[in-house]
């Protein structure tokens, strides 16, 4: 196994400075392939020593330098495919302001925040209820496996959230399974769950998603309600005779002011999207620190 570890370490060095998610992908792929190939090579020809077999395997897989350059190239091609904030590069301030409507990341962040109340609620409640149950069980003999299962589920949630963050916020997140070393028993796996920093960071993240997600969804709901009701103010007040209700007080707007109010509502939409994109970016960065193993 030492040869594979050495290879992986070299690959890690070669990919230094790369996106941590890319590094994880590369290490995962290489480890899986090299293990399988080495096992096959040794089974096929027994006259080779392990080192010779490993050299043959690497000859076909590629040296760490070659493998690293293959990942870097693909990564460069992908990022040039989706230049970040491509449509906001207009020379005119108005173009930049309204260009947000054509910015996929803003809409992604909008969706993410809209549903964050729901997902965050589920994560947070599970972390709270499951955590309390696991702690209660810890006074019994079966407490450790139950706590292990709970932590395992938290890591699972972290993976799921990672996919969501990548899809909607456009931040690269890991695709790596929870247990990197596979030939260990369940006892050691549970121990790993407890000792890995990653588990506790994921737990904190899931707990914090409860208030954070609710705040996101509330923000979207309130901001959208305000913008839409401003926009529809002339229709509501003149046709349906409905007053604008602001902070608990009903008020009819003077007719001359109605177009201004409506225009204000229209301007609020891109402002909301700009804010959402910024929040999404920040949340993506935060999720990456909490959920990706460095």
């Amino acid at each position: 196994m030492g040869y594979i570890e050495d290879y992986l370490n070299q690959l890690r060095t070669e990919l230094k400075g790369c996106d941590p998610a890319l590094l994880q992908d590369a290490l995962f792929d290489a480890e899986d392939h090299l293990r399988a190939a080495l096992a096959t090579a040794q089974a096929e020809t027994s006259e080779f020593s392990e080192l010779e077999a490993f050299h043959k395997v690497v000859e076909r897989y590629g040296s760490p330098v070659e493998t690293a350059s293959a990942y870097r190239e693909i990564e460069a091609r992908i990022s040039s495919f989706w230049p970040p904030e491509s449509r906001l590069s207009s020379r005119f301030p108005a173009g930049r302001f309204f260009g947000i409507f054509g910015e996929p990341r803003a809409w992604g962040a909008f969706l993410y925040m809209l549903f964050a109340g729901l997902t965050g609620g589920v994560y947070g409640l599970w972390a709270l209820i499951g955590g309390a149950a696991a702690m209660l069980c810890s006074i019994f003999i079966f407490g450790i496996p139950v706590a292990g299962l709970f932590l395992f589920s938290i890591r699972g949630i972290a993976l799921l959230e990672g996919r969501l963050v990548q899809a909607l916020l456009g931040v690269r997140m890991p695709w790596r399974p929870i247990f990197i070393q596979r030939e260990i028993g369940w006892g050691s796996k549970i121990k790993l769950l407890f000792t890995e920093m990653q588990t506790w960071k994921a737990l904190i993240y899931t707990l914090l998603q409860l208030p954070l997600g609710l705040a996101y969804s509330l923000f979207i709901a309130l901001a959208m309600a305000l913008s839409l009701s401003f926009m529809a103010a002339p229709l509501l007040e003149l046709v349906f005779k409905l007053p604008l209700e602001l902070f608990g007080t009903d008020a009819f707007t003077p007719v001359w002011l109605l177009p201004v109010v409506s225009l204000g509502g229209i301007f609020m939409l891109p402002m909301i999207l700009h804010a959402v994109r910024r929040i999404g970016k920040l949340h993506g960065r935060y999720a990456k620190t909490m959920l990706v193993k460095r």
Partner: protein
Amino acid sequence: MGYGIDANKKFQKELNSGTAALVLLSLLARAEEPMYGYQIAKRLESESGKLPMMKQGALYPVLRSMENSGLLASHVDPSISGPPRRYYHITAAGRDTLKSWKAIWDRTKTFVQVFLGGDHD
């Protein structure tokens, strides 16, 4: 001499960057069940008669980027006894793309062949 070898390598690499995706896509379109990386590499080797077109390690980032663009989908099988593996399969979008890529490939092949002086008709 060194320059020549480097230039050849570079040319091969540039060609591979496009063809690898096409080859992987058609291989997975023919596969009856999802395949993992090592299996794909082995299949390529056995079907091509060990033509050393590209390093096996370079296949993996292509697989991942194709999954990112929706041409392939994958799942990790967390087996208890052996190592968990990422199994890839082609998506409906992948099959559509393969059709148009095949057409592009045929046109490219014919075009190149005209200038290489091959006996095309």
